[in-house]
């Protein structure tokens, strides 16, 4: 395997969790709900996936545990913001704080244990294609899932009736309600989908990216996923491009650290965060396009009248 291939492979591995988490959040936000708790749901997924894998010995059960924990945890957010119309920003922050605490307790006994890495699934013949074969057809299940999710979400949002309903709820909940769409139920489902994706993204971190449990191991990726949704103007394809761009930045700074160029490692580590800010500025400085792209009811509470 050449160096070029190896680098591209690490870029894909670094980008996958952010892409998955951001896709989930994209669907949630398209329904008009801003869930800032991605970081918390992600870290819960990482802890539950790792512990379930260690207990059962099967990383596939770990993946299921990650997805389930993220979805269940997001229900808490749904209950507060949808049933009790609590402030979405504050509740999202609560999710992050609680998620970091609970995941720390769940994973405490497993710190430092060597994990089980998710095995690769090799597609016969296709895997023999030079470069591409190694990159695309000799990967783990979560990578394939991420590709399926991108295609699936794009199709669902823009080609299916349910997706149209979901978008209408996110653009004007009152009109959607008047048309007989169950706004609250739609939003609950969208929140849970976002939670499940964040959980899966967390599972990727503790089963593929670094197969072990470290407290707070998401290190801000949940927040970067949130930024990615804004960057992508709530469109799945742009989100993938942005996600891989982020992967490239974070991997290139790691390689720069390894080569020992004269810049202190801390400055290089700050690069992904600074790049995120830069990209946010670029994408949002034009007020009009931002206004057009943002789901109109994003973050606004809905109380059905009787």
């Amino acid at each position: 395997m050449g160096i070029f291939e190896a680098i591209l492979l690490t870029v894909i591995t670094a980008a996958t969790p952010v892409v998955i988490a951001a896709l989930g959040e994209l669907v949630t936000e398209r329904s008009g709900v801003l869930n800032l708790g991605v970081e918390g749901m992600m870290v819960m997924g990482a802890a539950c996936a790792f512990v379930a894998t260690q207990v059962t010995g099967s990383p596939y059960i770990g993946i299921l545990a990650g997805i389930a924990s993220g979805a269940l945890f997001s229900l808490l957010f749904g209950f507060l913001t949808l049933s009790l119309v609590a402030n979405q920003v504050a509740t999202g922050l609560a999710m992050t704080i609680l998620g970091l605490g609970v995941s720390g307790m769940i994973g405490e006994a497993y710190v430092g244990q060597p994990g089980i890495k998710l095995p690769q699934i090799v597609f016969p013949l296709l895997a023999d294609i030079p470069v591409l074969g190694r990159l695309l057809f000799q990967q783990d299940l979560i990578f394939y899932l991420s590709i399926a999710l991108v295609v699936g979400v794009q199709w669902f949002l823009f080609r299916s009736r349910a997706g149209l309903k979901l978008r209408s709820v996110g653009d004007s909940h009152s009109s959607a309600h008047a048309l007989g769409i169950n706004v609250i139920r739609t939003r609950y489902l969208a929140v849970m989908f976002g939670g499940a994706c964040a959980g899966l993204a967390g599972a990727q971190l503790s089963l593929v990216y670094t197969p072990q449990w470290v407290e707070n191991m998401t290190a801000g990726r949940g927040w970067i996923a949130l930024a990615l949704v804004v960057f992508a103007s709530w469109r799945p394809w742009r989100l993938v491009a942005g996600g891989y761009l982020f992967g490239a930045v974070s991997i290139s700074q790691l390689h720069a650290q390894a080569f020992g160029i004269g810049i202190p490692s801390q400055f290089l580590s700050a690069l992904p965060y600074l790049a995120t800010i830069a990209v946010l500025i670029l994408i949002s400085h034009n007020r009009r396009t931002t206004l057009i792209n943002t789901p109109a009811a994003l973050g606004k509470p809905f109380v059905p009248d009787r």
Partner: protein
Amino acid sequence: MRIELEKRPDVSRLFSILSPFIALLLTLVCGAVMFMMLGKNPVAALYGFFVEPLMEVWSLHELAVKAAPLILIAVGLSVCYRSNNWNIGAEGQFIMGAIAGSILPVMFHEWNSPFVLPLMMLFGMLGGALFAGIPAFLKAHLNTNEILTSLMLVYVAQLFLDWLVRGPWRNPGGLNFPETRTFEASAILPEMIASGRTHWGFGFAILAAILIWFMMRYTLKGFEITVLGQSERAGRFAGFSSRKMIWFSMLLSGALAGLAGISEVSGAMQQLRPVISPGYGFTAIIVAFLGRLNPLGIVVAGLVLALTYLGGEAVQVSLEISDKVTRVFQGLLLFFVLSCDTLIHYRIRLVASKLAGSATAAATTDGAR
């Protein structure tokens, strides 16, 4: 069964006062269940967590030391949140305030003068305010979401501090430990009360709370903050500028977080280390909401959250419970505070689902009225 909300005609005064207490009670109940699941006696654990740290003079001082940064930061955040500016990067502003305030005692440590301390505090406030000025500028002039930018900058500040204490600011006589030189006596914030460690940071916190309370209640600025927070449009008609408000609230909260940072470093640690905060900037968000964004309420809430830090340390020693329970308690508390706030604006009714028959539904409705 499902939940239905009915808007109250007026804000419920009763629940405005009661809701934080209900939230505390629910957190305690949840905590008891959690301790039982961990196989501990819940009464003993809760007693160890919430009561024992209040029984001794030295631990009361520790409480004040931990409450000081929480109150200072949360008072500033309350102004931000009331004006609908979501600064969640106070942790970063705390760190940058600590760094800017430490310029004198680290780089000019030979200079011993009564001016050192006041200048350090001033630098701390400037450092915090300038760092909060970045998301403020980006929001006010480039329309960039302040939640994400302020949060991203926390990581940048943490890395910058890490670089300083391992690199240029490392103590030359410190056996290569990643820490700066210890501050000279003239750069240490003195103790407030003779009996223990409580330093003047706590005094700053109380003073800030009173000043901001006065501003919010009796000045035009306070009114402007409230109006712009509730309706930007209404504020515009009144001639208030939301752009100026972004700057005002962010710089104010940044300065207070920076003051908290340098007070903590100068009063409690006397040097910079790679990590100088157990997440004060994030916990202060909970403090702000538990205090219902009221500066005086925040003083009480700050003491409560400081207790969760002390309690976590106490039960770790006495009952061998992980100190992670502190974060869990804090998260639970914020959840319950937010859900109880619903009671202030809405009546909550449980409505039996349609399948269960309309008789029960009618009964619940009548009962609620």
